[in-house]
């Protein structure tokens, strides 16, 4: 009996040991569950939510861009887009690479035949990351109605293929104002040109159309609107099982620009015409016709800085960016094109201003007090300063002339002497007064026009030279600011660089007696309910020119196109009805080593109560009075509804 009990006890003990083992297993499970379900629930719930919620954006229609009179510059049009549901024609491997299924290959072959697009191209488009994996991939835009009807009627040939109407950017006026308007691209592959802001596209969904330059970029936040979305519930295979919520998109606001479509058209036509004419003129110095590859025109309101037209040649059609440009096309037409049509010659290119800068030198010399507004100034054919000879563009001696007259006939020698004085003052520790005035007129820094990519130009000074010398001693062998630098700068040469827009703003300040406005392209924003948000004019600064000096300059400029025979723009303005509209103007001809001369013409009108500033710049196209002035004349005729004359080269005046 005892033995048996001992046996039973032993069995009980062993069962109890087994029980302890089982208990430890259960405890292990419970502890692990506690860790997962109670301590880590938040992170896992996030994972679970990410699993089954797919947000498919509903893109907002982009706002339109209108001219100042409400004429449409950029619109949207409905385009038929063929899409392919990737799940129906392909499988995705672990590396997210698409593999066509046998059925999908047949479908794509059929589609290739219908659209006349190679299978390889279709396959390429299928790989897009611009839309999420659930969204059918767009493979062809602007397909015809007939093709869509065929698709509808033969759905068995095209499983997974569908079509949608999508708004595409439309340009009713073709290339008109392309540089000001800018282009669009698809986020995120096409990144921005110009300033990049990390937060700019934070809330954007892939596939969103974004502005890549010009007004499209600058007014992105208004034009874009608010995207909507559909939240789908999807299962593990990616099938949609239900809709969790939707949000309709709000279309973008319309942006009204300061551009006048008619003036813009005229400016572009005149620029193109003027450049073409310049290419027929023979240049004795270079022994060939002017190349005249490019040019820019700005028309601005001097009373508020509104840009009424800005033309840049050569130009391009933004449509190709809206329908999607391939990288090969882009490389051929833009990247490797020596004409660089994408560069805006008005804001993104900088040139020596030549004699158009003399207004700044004159204003500085008079305001600083060493040039008497009523005094006489010698205008010989050359001056000798610091053992160097500086030539006037005219080869005869004009004797002693007034400051007005020095501007009218653009006498270089008068201004060389001013330059010498500025240099002496700099050496005497009185500062770089000419540079200071140039900066006061807005040169050397961007004007603040809304659109991206604007160049700041350059006002060279001692500090600049030092840094250049330090960085590149071969190209800049001297580290002292020599007198010749200031003397050249006084006539707008040397290392001084400006953009046509900067010059327009500076001449605007002369026209309006000293207020430098920030040029603007935006006038107002119209939201869906037609509520208007206006862009207010912005004053950059009052230019510190003394009033007497200002009126001397204005008096001089209004004779440039009038005074026979010395006025440098007289030739281009023969027969112009000055009795109806008086024109204040200044010609300029900039020399760049190894290049044909750059022609400038800066003007405003009417001279006594100015409404428009017109600045023309032509690359390697001759002298200001010769080729730039006739273009400005044609534009002024249009601005004031005067009888139109033909653009013809005038006398070769600087």
């Amino acid at each position, binding site marked *: 009996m005892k033995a*048996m009990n001992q*046996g039973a006890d*032993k*069995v*009980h003990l*062993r*069962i*109890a*040991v*087994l*029980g302890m*083992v*089982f*208990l430890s*297993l*259960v405890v*292990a*499970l*419970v502890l*692990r*569950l*506690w860790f*997962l*379900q*109670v301590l*880590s*629930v938040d992170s*896992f*719930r996030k*994972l*679970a*939510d990410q*699993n*089954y919620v797919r947000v498919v954006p509903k893109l907002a229609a982009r706002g339109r861009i209108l001219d100042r009179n409400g004429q449409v510059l950029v619109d949207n049009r409905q385009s038929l887009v063929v899409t392919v549901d990737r799940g129906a024609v392909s499988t995705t491997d*672990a590396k997210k690479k698409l593999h066509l299924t046998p059925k999908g290959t047949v479908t794509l072959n059929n589609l290739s035949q219908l659209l006349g697009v190679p299978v390889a191209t279709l396959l390429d488009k299928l790989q897009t990351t611009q839309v999420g994996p659930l969204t059918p991939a767009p493979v062809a835009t602007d397909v015809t109605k007939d093709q869509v009807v065929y698709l509808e009627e033969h759905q068995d040939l095209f499983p997974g293929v569908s079509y949608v109407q999508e708004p595409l950017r439309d340009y009713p006026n073709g290339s008109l104002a392309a540089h000001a308007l800018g282009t669009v691209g698809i986020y995120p592959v096409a990144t921005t040109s110009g300033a990049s802001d990390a937060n700019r596209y934070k809330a954007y969904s892939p596939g969103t159309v974004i502005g890549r330059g010009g007004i499209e970029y600058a007014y992105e936040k208004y034009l874009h609107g608010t995207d909507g979305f559909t939240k789908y*519930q*999807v*299962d*593990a*295979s990616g*099938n949609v*099982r239900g809709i969790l919520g939707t949000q309709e998109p709000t279309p973008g606001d319309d942006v009204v620009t300061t551009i006048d479509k008619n003036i813009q058209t005229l400016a572009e036509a005149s620029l193109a015409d003027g450049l073409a004419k310049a290419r027929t003129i023979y240049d004795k110095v270079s022994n060939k016709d002017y190349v005249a590859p490019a040019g820019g025109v700005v028309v601005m309101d001097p009373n508020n800085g509104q840009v009424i037209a800005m033309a840049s040649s050569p130009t391009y059609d933004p449509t190709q960016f809206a329908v999607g440009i391939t990288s090969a096309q882009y490389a051929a037409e833009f990247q490797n094109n020596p004409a660089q049509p994408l560069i805006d010659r008005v804001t993104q290119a900088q040139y020596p201003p030549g004699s158009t800068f003399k207004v700044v030198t004159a204003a500085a010399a008079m305001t600083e007090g060493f040039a008497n507004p009523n005094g006489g100034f010698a205008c010989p054919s050359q001056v000798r300063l610091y053992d160097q000879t500086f030539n006037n563009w005219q080869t005869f001696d004009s004797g002693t002339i007034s400051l007005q007259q020095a501007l009218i006939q653009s006498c270089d020698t008068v201004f060389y002497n001013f330059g010498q004085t500025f240099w002496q003052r700099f050496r005497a520790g009185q500062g770089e007064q000419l540079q200071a005035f140039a900066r006061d007129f807005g040169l050397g820094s961007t004007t603040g026009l809304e659109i991206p990519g604007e160049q700041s130009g350059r006002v060279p000074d001692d500090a600049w030279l030092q840094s250049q010398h330090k960085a590149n001693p071969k190209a800049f062998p001297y580290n002292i600011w020599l007198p010749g630098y200031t003397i050249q700068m006084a006539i707008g040469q040397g290392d001084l660089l400006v953009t046509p827009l900067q010059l327009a703003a500076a001449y605007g300040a002369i026209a309006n007696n000293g207020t430098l406005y920030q040029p603007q392209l935006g006038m107002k924003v119209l939201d869906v309910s037609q509520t208007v948000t206006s862009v207010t004019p912005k004053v950059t600064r009052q230019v510190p020119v003394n009033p007497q000096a200002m009126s001397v300059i204005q008096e001089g400029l209004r004779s440039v196109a009038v005074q026979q025979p010395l006025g440098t723009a007289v030739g281009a303005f023969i027969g112009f009805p000055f009795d109806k509209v008086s024109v204040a103007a200044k010609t300029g001809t900039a020399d760049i080593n190894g290049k044909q001369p750059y022609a400038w013409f800066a003007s405003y009108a009417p001279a006594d109560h100015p409404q428009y500033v017109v600045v023309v710049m032509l690359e390697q196209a001759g002298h200001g009075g010769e080729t730039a002035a006739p273009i400005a004349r044609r534009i002024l005729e249009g601005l004031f509804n005067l009888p139109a004359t033909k653009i013809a080269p005038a006398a070769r005046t600087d």
Partner: protein
Amino acid sequence: MAKQDVYLGRIETIGGHQLLSGWLSAKHPLRHMDLPLFTAALATAALGCIAIYSATRPSLLALGRDPNFYLKRQLAFLALAMVVFVISLLFDYRQLRGLAPLIYLAGIGLLVLVLSPIGHTTLGAQRWITVGILQIQPSEIMKLVLIVALSALWADKGANTGLGRVVLAVALAAVPAALIYLQPDLGTVLVLVFLAFSIVVVAGARLRWIGLLVALSAGVFVLVLHLGLLHDYQIKRLTAFLDQSSKSTAAYNLQQSRTAVASGGLTGKGLFRGTQTNLDYVPENHTDFIFTVVGEETGFAGSLLLIGLFSFLIWRALRIAMMSKDQFGARLAAGVGAMLAFQLFINVGMTIGIVPVVGIPLPFVSYGGSSLLTSFCAVGILMNIHMRRFI
């Protein structure tokens, strides 16, 4: 006599009225049913039915089929399981001892049939044979068969501790383990190994032999790994278990099942509201991964309830093992307890990443007739031992 009855804890009369059971003798088996055991088993099965319905309803609906399809079938299996349960109470379990060789041979026969051309393949494993309209999974039945066979191996008295018995036990377990390994069904093999251990321990084998067995098993495991006897998918699952954040499909499945359970939180997302469950993120979630449904939809509370029910069943099994009149019953009951404990641990453990993924069902809960019938048959045997502990 009456005094003895009181000693046995039986109530004969209530308020002077003699109870119906009073007609039976005090030691009559019908008076010693373990009702809490049966209730817990039935409750676990009911929980399983709800989980199966939740797991299968959305995908059935998405396919345009009857959302109750799997639920109805499981309820039919449950009805059948009740019949099996009752049958397993009707005879004295001690008769199993004599029948053990026959039962064992029949079980092995079925396993051989599975591997023969009659066998039926699903998901790459040959685990089923078809009898009429029913598909049976003999490996499920084999677990119970082995428990009976091993329990019968030792005499109740006398020299019980010799090495010979242990060697015989290893042989008896090795044959079905090898056959099931060939299917392949690694999970069931592991369960067989564990329950064989448990029975050998309860049978009173000396510690040195048990130690030898552990060393031997470890040796076999290492050998299997080195000889490349594991299938590719098994290696992938093992790799996924060791590197649970990797990008492989096996790891993805494990991540999804772990996410399902963990995202349930304290009280769960609510019945039929589990997104992982409803949207098919966890594969096989009505069979081997049924616990993810419980974990996601009822949370820690529901998981605890389920594990609590299992703990109760296991405790009940060990209690019956201790109460058993003979050691054959003790080994049987301990074997059933071990079966439940290891299946629970492996099944739940693999969904939450503490055990590599091996495909075994959760007893009472997973969808499937063979598993449910086997589980209730096992409960019937436990009950049988409990009922006959005085005779």
